[in-house]
């Protein structure tokens, strides 16, 4: 039986659309399509590959390295995220403005 595939649009790569199987990670599918995204641990234990989910839903294993604040800001980990439906995403460190904060700084002073 043909595996279910979803269309994932990478908004900040010229709106490129990649086909991602339900059991395939967005990272792997993007790489196969010629897009080298940030990557490191490749198991959801670090946030090097983080990007933003703009629309649609993905499946990620529990216990990924994203904290609540980062998840609420829309980040997902491309190395473990698998699409459940068609999605639009933004990738790369250019999306990381809200990912990091200085832990000694006041919450209201965090940089965008």
């Amino acid at each position, binding site marked *: 039986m043909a595996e279910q595939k979803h269309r994932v649009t990478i908004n900040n790569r010229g709106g490129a659309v990649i086909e991602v199987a339900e059991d395939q990670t967005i990272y792997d599918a993007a790489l196969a399509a010629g897009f080298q995204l*940030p990557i490191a641990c490749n198991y959801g234990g*670090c946030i090097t590959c983080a990007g933003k989910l703009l629309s649609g839903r993905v499946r990620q294993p529990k216990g990924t390295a994203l*904290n609540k604040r980062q998840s609420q800001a829309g980040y997902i980990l491309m190395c473990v995220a698998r699409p459940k439906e068609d999605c639009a995403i933004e990738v*790369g*460190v250019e999306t990381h403005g809200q990912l990091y904060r200085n*832990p*000694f700084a006041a919450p209201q002073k965090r940089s965008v």
Partner: protein
Amino acid sequence: MANNGSGPGYASPAEAMKAGREKLLYTVALYVGTGVEKPDYLATVDVDPDSPTYSQVVARTEMPQIGDELHHSGWNACSSCHGHAHMSRQYLLMPGVRTSNINVIDVSDAKNPRHHKVVSGEDIKAKTNLSAPHTVHCLHSDIIISMLGDADGNGPGGFLHLDQNFDIVGRWENDLGDMKYNYDFWYQPRHNMMVSSEWGAPNTFMPGFDLEDVGAGKYGQTIHFWDFEGKKIVKSIDMGADGMIPLEVRGMHDPASNEGFFAATLSSNVFRWWKTDDGDFEIEKVIDVPTIDVEGFPVPMPSLITDILISMDDKYLYFANWLHGDLRQYDITDRANPKLTGQVWLGGQLGKAPEVNGVTVQGAPQMIQLSLDGKRLYVTTSLFSTWDNQFYPDMKDKGGQMYMIDCDTENGGMTINPDFVVDFGNEPNGPSRAHEMRYPGGDVTSDIWM
């Protein structure tokens, strides 16, 4: 490297000090977390002032896989193998903390290191249930590497044993005792001792630093003393609030000495450790760097002592304060009472030296390496990609730097050398972060005498 038939390294620390001035320096250079989607690399820096390419990167050796986060490195053989003519200091092992790959670099041609092989991180996980390799020490003929996590990135990790061909033997240790986390280690076979420290589990520190994780006990505050031959922990000391996140552990170079120092990074204290005459281990706090209240920061800022080393003659202790932005030199002739003898400022969160030698400093003093004769201290400014991105977010776009500090070994004192700066912001493939440094012939943080 070629050797003179007497094996790698030097007969003694005193002999090492006479080796002559270093001409090349290796440093890891990272693209993880910068936006340059290329593998990390080993940068070879020309540190010979008589060379036309002085203070420049003269070779770049790329790793085969993207995303390693190269961090620390170590040799296949050091002065512990001196006298073994069949061995040579030919391979530099460069672990990737995030991928768990261990890259082996052949430095037979010192000016043009070549990638030799990879010990696959996936293979290490499958065979030993360990991940996140960190400190590499040669163990006479074999190699042991501290591993910071299990295969899933949780604590406590353990120690990986490789043979001379870089094949996985298995786990080195017999008994981890109550060890919760792992990080650095130093060993001295003459006293049958090893000391190891604690950072945190990879799944805790890899995403970045969060004070809530400190409160939840997810960072280490314990130092471990080992029966080296028995490969088991014999004493662990929980230091509480004084000893949070103990990282680099150093021993005296004189193999007759049974003591050393380590820094508790977050608490920003330096401890002395020693083995007593009756075989027990003890520690005492000898330096306490006060926190500073910074406007706009509700939490007092620790200095964050991220690296520490001891000069080859065991006379001076140096350390880096990565948040405050200073490098310090202490005379440790009186081991229990280190005396501050030098200090310089480079970058940092306090804004005391934002520009040095015409370059805006990204980050602050971090990894340090001292010349064998003790007169030149090299320093790089990156700590760890995710932590860099929290504390010094501009570094990912502007790259890290390397500076050299002239050190007065007679009377004490430090001065930033005005003629040396390597700006990794100008790298041909884009800005990178420089971290740990090594010399081709051995240095004060790799060589151990038996």
